[in-house]
């Protein structure tokens, strides 16, 4: 009865929210839950014979024991190191850059700069990375330039070093860091920065106390957008790092492709997913704890004023 009077708009709003979220839920189920569930299921099985990839006739955790062997762990530690260092480097470069872009560059020039940031995306990922191989090889541009500057006297190869891997990682993932940071910083109203300076904070304190805290969601998004794909990427590392760039993603892929051992590959993939998730949680917890500790004293200082308790 009463619903008759509410009109179609109210009826639409009153529709069970489940109805409206169905497409999104279906999407997640089809493209996220199902594949991850399948991988988890395979990881509990085994490779029954030479020509079969997996079987789940016996459920066992043996694949995990196998996966956590020495090669995998070494490679895993290396991957995590590159993942963390690469993400940190991207943040260290991307944050000042995005700040400069959002705050200092005139609005009508920003799009030009943003377009330049995105130019590398117009070329294929593999081609760009191989391009760096050419630059960094002993006969390459980097070596020549350093020789002609007199910094070194024999041809020098940056290629197949950890530095080369990090360079490639930063080059490939930096835009993924800059874009969310730029969006977040751009949304911080300029009059807030002015208010901060007006109240006696110099530009560093303004950045630390006003701009960065307000850009926190963008920083989190940037970290996730770089760290997660980076942990699964092995092409950049393989092309520029050679034997040193042995990433865990490569081991997983080779189990699926060369060894045709889907069960073991799945177990490795699950370990990878879990470690990525734990790293993110640990980082988030550390971030929250730091913020809490840093603001704790100040909150205590002002606590209870509303209740009128004495200072």
């Amino acid at each position, binding site marked *: 009865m009463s619903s008759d009077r509410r009109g179609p708009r109210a009826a639409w709003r009153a529709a069970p929210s489940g109805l409206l979220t169905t497409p999104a839920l279906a999407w997640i189920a089809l493209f996220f839950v199902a594949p991850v569930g399948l991988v988890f299921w395979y990881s509990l099985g085994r490779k029954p014979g030479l020509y079969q990839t997996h079987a789940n006739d016996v459920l066992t955790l043996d694949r995990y024991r196998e996966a956590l062997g020495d090669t995998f762990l070494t490679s895993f530690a290396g991957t995590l190191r590159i993942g963390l260092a690469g993400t940190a480097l991207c943040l260290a470069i991307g944050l000042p850059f995005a700040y400069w872009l959002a705050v200092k560059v005139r609005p009508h020039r920003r799009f030009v700069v943003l377009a330049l940031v995105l130019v590398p995306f117009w070329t294929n990922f593999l081609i760009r990375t191989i391009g760096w191989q050419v630059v960094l090889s002993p006969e390459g541009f980097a070596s020549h330039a350093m020789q002609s500057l007199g910094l070194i006297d024999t041809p020098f190869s940056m290629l197949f070093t950890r530095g080369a891997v990090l360079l490639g990682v930063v080059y490939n993932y930096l835009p993924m860091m800059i874009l969310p940071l730029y969006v977040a910083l751009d949304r911080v109203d300029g*009059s807030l920065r*002015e208010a901060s300076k*007006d*109240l*006696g*904070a110099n530009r560093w304190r303004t950045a630390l106390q006003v701009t960065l805290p307000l850009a926190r969601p963008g920083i989190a998004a940037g970290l996730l957008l770089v760290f997660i794909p980076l942990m699964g990427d092995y092409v950049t590392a393989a092309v520029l790092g050679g034997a040193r760039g042995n990433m865990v993603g490569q081991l997983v892929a080779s189990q699926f492709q060369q060894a045709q051992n889907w069960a073991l590959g799945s177990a490795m993939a699950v370990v990878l997913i879990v470690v990525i998730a734990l790293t993110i949680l640990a980082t988030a917890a550390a971030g929250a704890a730091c913020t809490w500790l840093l603001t704790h004293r100040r909150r205590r200082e*002002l606590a209870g*004023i*509303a209740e009128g308790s004495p200072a």
Partner: protein
Amino acid sequence: MSSSATRHAVTSAGRAGAGDGTGSVDLRSVRKSFGGVTVVQDLDLSVNPGEFLSLLGPSGCGKTTTLRMLAGFEQPDSGEVLISGAAVQHLPPHKRDVNTVFQSYALFPHMTVAANIAYGLRQRRGIDRAEIRSRVSEALDMVQMTRFADRKPNRLSGGQQQRVALARALVNRPSVLLLDEPLAALDRKLREDMQVELKLLQNRLGTTFVFVTHDQEEALSMSDRVAVMLNGRIEQIADPYTVYERPATAFVAGFIGQQNFFDGTVADGGRVIEIDGGTVLLAEPVTTPGSGAAAVRVAVRPEAVAVTEAAPTEPDGSANALPGTVAAVSLLGDVLQYVVHADAGHELLARVPRRQAGRLAEGARVRCSWAPSDVHVFPAEATPRAPIGSAK
């Protein structure tokens, strides 16, 4: 609500009458342009310690730019900015002893009300925690926002945010407080309450206020002095009474309150001005540069115009009077406002106290008249620099 705003003792040392110039503001030949467009030109302005000065002018006349040069957000192209007697034009905003109340309030959304107010104190060295706390709670008390200390700004009404912005600036006890249309976003009733509150607060603290507004009533009711700006210059700076009663230029005359303007020419050695359909007698003769019939603009306030029913026998077009027909009548509170179409083509506005005279109907034949002492004369240019004389 307005009276209790000042109930609480505020320990800010009264800056007024400090005698050492603390709280004074001086702009000397300040000029500022943006991309070749001059926005502020040769501006000279002195504000006394403890004074409430309003910058009043139409949109785009450079009020905000002037204020931003005082705060340090814009650098003047030339000229000097002095605060408390010291040149500050090269100091960044955070080193100036001024605070700003922004039009948009600019409260930090990630901090509570109390933390917003504490922000300025925390940037300084040598203020201990107990003092921060007591000054914050004192400032909250001053604007009656104590109850909301732990709220985030996005959960406050516009008027409450405005109070927080005010407290956040005043808690630092600046020598000069700059306010850029702080009441513009509030509805009429709240705005009028806040005007009273702000004025009382300023009286109590003795802090110099430089208050930007484009609302002439606001400027007249709150200020010790009003600086009327046009095109980046100050047209007149005087106390509200003088600005209203003796506007220095035709622009000021028209911008402050309403005016009936007539264009005419000077005759009879400056004693009389010929306008269409009549003559205007002056109390004192005007002196015109050069000789001959100078073009002038005559202004008469609506409340100086008397409207009487025209007696059929009376001759039309005597001095300081125009015959006409009532085109519209409206009641503005205590006064009746008549719009009269004069026979000579002018449209006159007249305001008479409601109780004083019987109400005339639309279409009535009337005679509008005024006293010679209510006439102001200005040069005929669109925006004159200075009056050639004024019939006081």
